[in-house]
């Protein structure tokens, strides 16, 4: 008996000890030869395995760009599907190197949960979806409604605040994953489904009858979504941040996956393009990578605009407009610090 207890204790200790190695994520990733990327368990347009079991989507493209910059191959990514409940524990325990999972940048997550948000890849806000035949045209008419929510998200808190500040009552139906919430909503077990507007659009696009569902006009919160890493490894945080910035800068500078080869070979009159593509200066070495890091990151899935357009843009079933996510030069919020 004592033997068993001792062995059990040792096994438990080995598990608890697994997350110990902390610094130098870059070396870990290079030695391992693949990037462990935490993603959604399945959200159309953002992260989902396609018919050939290859992960596709907006968030997935970020994982691929980071893997391309660090390892030279966009396919060297180990996708770890995480629920909203398990994502932070997985990142804190070192199970994933980076979390790109429609995660809202908040004070508590940044400061108290000890994470570093590297960038904002999608400016979002929480909205409500109802069936058309409910006859509701504003979220202010939802008094007494049953509301399906994905539990463990900021939506839960925004929802409580919204209904309380408007003096309305509601009945929350907490659900663990987006897929299960979808089922409950479609079965009519709740009147309303709430999550970020991008998630609502993605969810609605996967319905058999998207035209019978309407997203209400109210957006009740700010949800800046972006990739995040653990506190304490600034080099790794810098890599994730500047890969994201490179994608936005590429769109701003007119670098696309189509012309990047030519620009890399022949150069460009704008020195910032040359610095970004490693023809001038040694930005790559400062990050601990080689000179071609940004070329590979941009070639992986294109620049920010291309990633947006192929995965969730107006030409896709998700059909999201650029809106706040247009470049700053076009009235949006996507803006990158200079590459110099």
């Amino acid at each position, binding site marked *: 008996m*004592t033997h068993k*207890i*001792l062995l059990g*204790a*040792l096994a*438990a*200790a080995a598990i*608890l*000890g697994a*997350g*110990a190695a*902390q610094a130098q994520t870059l070396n870990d990733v290079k030695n391992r030869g693949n990037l462990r990327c935490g993603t959604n368990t399945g959200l159309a347009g953002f992260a989902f395995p396609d018919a050939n079991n290859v992960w596709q989507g907006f968030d997935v493209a970020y994982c691929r760009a980071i893997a391309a910059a660090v390892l030279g191959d966009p396919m060297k990514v180990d996708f770890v599907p995480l629920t*909203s*409940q398990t994502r*932070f*524990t997985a990142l*804190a325990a070192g199970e994933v190197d980076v979390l790109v999972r429609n995660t809202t940048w908040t004070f*508590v*997550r940044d400061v*108290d*949960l*000890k994470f570093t948000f590297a960038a904002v890849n999608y400016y979002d806000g929480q909205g409500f979806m109802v069936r058309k035949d*409910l006859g*509701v045209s504003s979220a202010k*008419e*939802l*008094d*007494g*409604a*049953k509301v399906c929510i994905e*539990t*463990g*998200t900021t939506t*839960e*808190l925004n*929802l*409580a*605040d919204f*209904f*309380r500040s408007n003096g309305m009552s*509601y*009945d*929350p*139906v*907490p*659900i*663990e994953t987006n897929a299960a919430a979808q*089922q*409950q909503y479609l*079965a*009519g*077990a*709740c*009147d309303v489904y709430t999550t970020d507007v991008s998630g609502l659009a993605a969810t609605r696009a996967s319905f058999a009858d998207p035209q019978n569902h309407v997203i209400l006009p109210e957006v009740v919160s700010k949800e800046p979504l972006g990739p995040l890493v*653990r*506190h*304490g490894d600034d080099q790794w945080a810098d890599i994730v941040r500047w890969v994201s910035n490179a994608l936005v800068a590429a769109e701003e500078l007119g670098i696309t996956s189509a012309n990047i080869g030519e620009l890399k070979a022949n150069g460009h009159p704008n020195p910032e393009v040359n610095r970004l593509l490693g023809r001038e200066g040694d930005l790559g070495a400062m990050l601990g990578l080689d000179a071609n890091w940004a070329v590979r990151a941009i070639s992986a899935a294109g620049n920010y605009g291309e990633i947006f357009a192929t995965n969730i843009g107006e030409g896709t079933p998700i059909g999201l407009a650029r809106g706040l996510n247009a470049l700053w030069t076009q009235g949006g919020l996507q803006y990158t610090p200079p590459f110099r």
Partner: protein
Amino acid sequence: MATTTPDYRQGSFRLSMLIYDSRYRAITIQIVFLMLLMAGFAWLVDNTIQNLRALGKDFSYRFLWQSAGYDINQTLIAYNSTMSHARAMVVGLLNTILVAVMACALATVLGVLAGVLRLSNNWIVARLMTIYVELFRNIPTVLWILIFFSVMAISMPEPRAFRGEAATASMLVFDSVAITNRGVYIPEPVFDRSLGDLDLRYFKVSVDLLAIIAALIASSWASGRIVARANRIQEETGIRPATWWLRLAVWVLPVAALLSALGFHLVKPVLPETGIPNFQGGIHMRNSLIALWLALSVYTGAFIAEVVRAGILAVNRGQTEAAVSLGLRPTLTMRLVILPQALRVIIPPMISQYLNITKNSSLAIAVGYMDLRATLGGITINQTGRELEAMLLMMLIYLALSLTISSLMNVYNARVKLKER
């Protein structure tokens, strides 16, 4: 002749005797293992502290007093999103206890019925019970929970089906019970002349409920006196007076009088004609509660059936034959002779089953039932990031809950077990 034979009884103690002397060896081994175990624990704790430090986290329960910020749909005590995480934890704990108690009661009824019927001489009944037991105990609990939940959510009518001229669904039992895909709405007891609530600072207790409980306790005492008197008369005269009508009156009349004095009546759930179609009023038993309750009950009921069957079979067949030869009917034989003896075998494994129900109720998150695991162990962890603290606290609470159930059942076990004098 002088001898040099050493005197073993008073021989000096040598260190090697700890291993080679059988008197000490067992103790030595135990002490070494204990030290290793403690070293292992110390290493675990130290490792955890180091890892927390590496992550830059401290260990603190201050988060419990912060505002929770989230709403809970089923609350047995007053709660809103501005209250603390500790309050949310208590709400979750009460929900856990509620479903555990409901499931223990139903599982016991189902289990005892199925256990007794499985021994029935009627071939069909016995085989049906075998099918029940084998079907339910061989499929994981969580699947049963999901099955019940899906059946409720998908096959029951939506509340809107109850509305308007062309309603396709209707309420049952004099328009008082509505079974919808959002749960079951049943009438709610309301007191017109309520005695109010007793404010105990952290929560309120209905004085009406306390009064009813007091009346029931008084009835129980009076009923006990009536039986005692009947026993005495039987001892003295050999004739047992009929007591059933007296006892019935003692149980029913005081409570009925109290209820009518309090202005007791039932309020039916109603569907408003306009606005969002959701029933108002009445008690709302959510799908999650019903699914969890039924699934835990039928699953554990199958195990209890086997425990009961084993208990009955453990009673010597001679007991039955003796009872029959005294002229007792089969139902009386079961009630007066077999079951009291079988209880001695049944109770100890039943304790485990009750503990299982309580612990399995933590699967509630699968259907979004807001139990302790979903509040403290789910949303609170997610919003505060205090995994270690919350998990330790949750383990402690489940441990305390299980030990309480266990000790209560042990008290009962001590009452029914064979008295050895």
